[in-house]
């Protein structure tokens, strides 16, 4: 009997602890919390935008969740509670707009692809044309935006450098990662000879060297941002989106290597 009661108390205690982990959004009157889901490649830029926004709005706390856009799309589709979604390509955003999860979206930044190699560059890759020299190449999966852009870039390369070149490069792929930061990490650790990432990921790490992709082969990655339909604070979310698209937001994005959306 005594044992049972002890168990019951322990169980209730545990439940209370878990209940305490519940999203505190809306519970506090003074501070509101804004949840932003953003593509992995936006990690550094959005962290800075986050602190800038918080400085301008001291009563707002911004929480960020970075992952591959396809993972965030899945989480939002499964009912994850967020206010804003910033994707690295239009495909995942459109899918969410079509299913009514996102109200509408607007473009806010552009990016390009680049090749990264370890600092000691063991395969001596100096240009895009040297890519077949890599013993091990890491790219994104077919679903993550960086992986889709990479395949698109391979098609451009096929037209200019031939089938054989693209086949050789594809044969060097040893792993496909689910977000661009994981792709870059394989080169930063020195485990891969080369990886294909966004130019912004290339310049933001001092552990990798950048090899440019010729502009005739490169692709233009466009980043849309949108409000989540179910947000409880549409005005605040709107303010954040406007901040990202303001001159200050653009300045931060450009400092992190992004290109402005308006050409």
């Amino acid at each position: 009997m005594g044992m049972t009661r002890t168990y019951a108390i322990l169980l209730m205690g545990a439940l209370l602890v878990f209940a305490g982990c519940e999203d505190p959004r809306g519970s506090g009157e003074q501070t509101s919390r804004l949840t932003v889901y953003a593509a992995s490649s936006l990690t550094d830029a959005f962290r800075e935008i986050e602190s800038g926004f918080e400085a301008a709005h001291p009563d707002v706390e911004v929480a960020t969740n970075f992952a591959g856009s396809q993972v965030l799309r899945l989480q939002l589709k499964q009912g994850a509670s967020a206010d804003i979604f910033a994707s690295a390509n239009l495909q995942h955003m459109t899918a969410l707009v079509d299913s009514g999860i996102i109200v509408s979206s607007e473009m806010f930044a552009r990016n390009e692809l680049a090749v990264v190699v370890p600092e000691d560059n063991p395969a001596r890759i100096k240009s895009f044309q040297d890519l077949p020299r890599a013993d091990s190449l890491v790219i994104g999966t077919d679903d993550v935006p960086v992986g889709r852009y990479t395949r698109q870039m391979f098609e451009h390369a096929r037209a200019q450098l031939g089938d054989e070149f693209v086949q050789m490069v594809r044969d060097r792929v040893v792993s496909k990662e689910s977000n661009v930061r994981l792709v870059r990490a394989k080169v930063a650790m020195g485990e891969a000879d080369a990886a294909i990432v966004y130019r912004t990921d290339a310049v933001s790490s001092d552990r990798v060297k950048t090899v440019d992709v010729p502009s005739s082969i490169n692709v233009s990655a466009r980043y849309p941002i949108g409000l989540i339909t179910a947000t409880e604070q549409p005005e605040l979310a709107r303010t954040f989106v406007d901040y990202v698209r303001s001159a200050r937001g653009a300045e931060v994005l450009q400092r992190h290597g992004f290109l402005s959306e308006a050409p």
Partner: protein
Amino acid sequence: MMSRTAYLAAPLVMVLLLPVVGLFVSPSAADVVAGANHPLFAPALWLSLRTSVLSLGLIVVMGTPLAWWLANSSSPSARVVELVVNLPIVIPPAVIGVGLLQVFGRRGLLGPWLESVGLSVPFSSAAVVIAQVVVAAPFFVQASANAFRKVDDELMVVARTLGESGPGAFLRVALPIALPGLIAGASIAWARGLGEFGATLLFAGNMTGETQTMPIAIYTALESDVRAAVVMSMLLAAVGVLLLVALRFAPAAWKWTRDLGGPS
């Protein structure tokens, strides 16, 4: 009293059972067919079977003598080795993956040497097997050592006095007695190897047909086609359920067939 205990235990039992039930209840037949036809499915199944069977073979061949030694040695070194063998059970698989990179990676302890003889382990099927062996071996070795400990020393002495050699006594006396324990250990080790995810993802990467085992294919498919992820999950869950049922009833079935066969 009994009912009150059940009241407290029920949430736990439900939370253990429901994920397995949910897997088999939610998808439609069309979903299952679509999932099984997903391009990730067949290569992952084949790779998982190949690597997990190879891993199990390596574990049994190297683990059986180790278990025998652990069961029979009373030296302090044996106790230390037993602890070391069990380390991967308490270390998170992701940590094992990082550790394996630090050993076999290009900049790892053995990396430069391996590279000099033309071997590159990370991102290869060999890396998958190494990860599986590390995480699964403890389960086999521990179960086998426990099984060998139940072999009566005197039986071995009698076998020797009846003219059996050392290895002969092991093969004809100790092994048959310990066999059910060894099989149970091997089954659990195989299931653990088949389900290996964290260490494999970090150490071996994610490449269809090369390093993308079923659990990693599930993780990848979840980002594109949930149906494929569900079908692969169903298959792995079914394998686990079958294994558990077989282990539960194998001893009885074993005894039954032996009794049927009469004194041999």
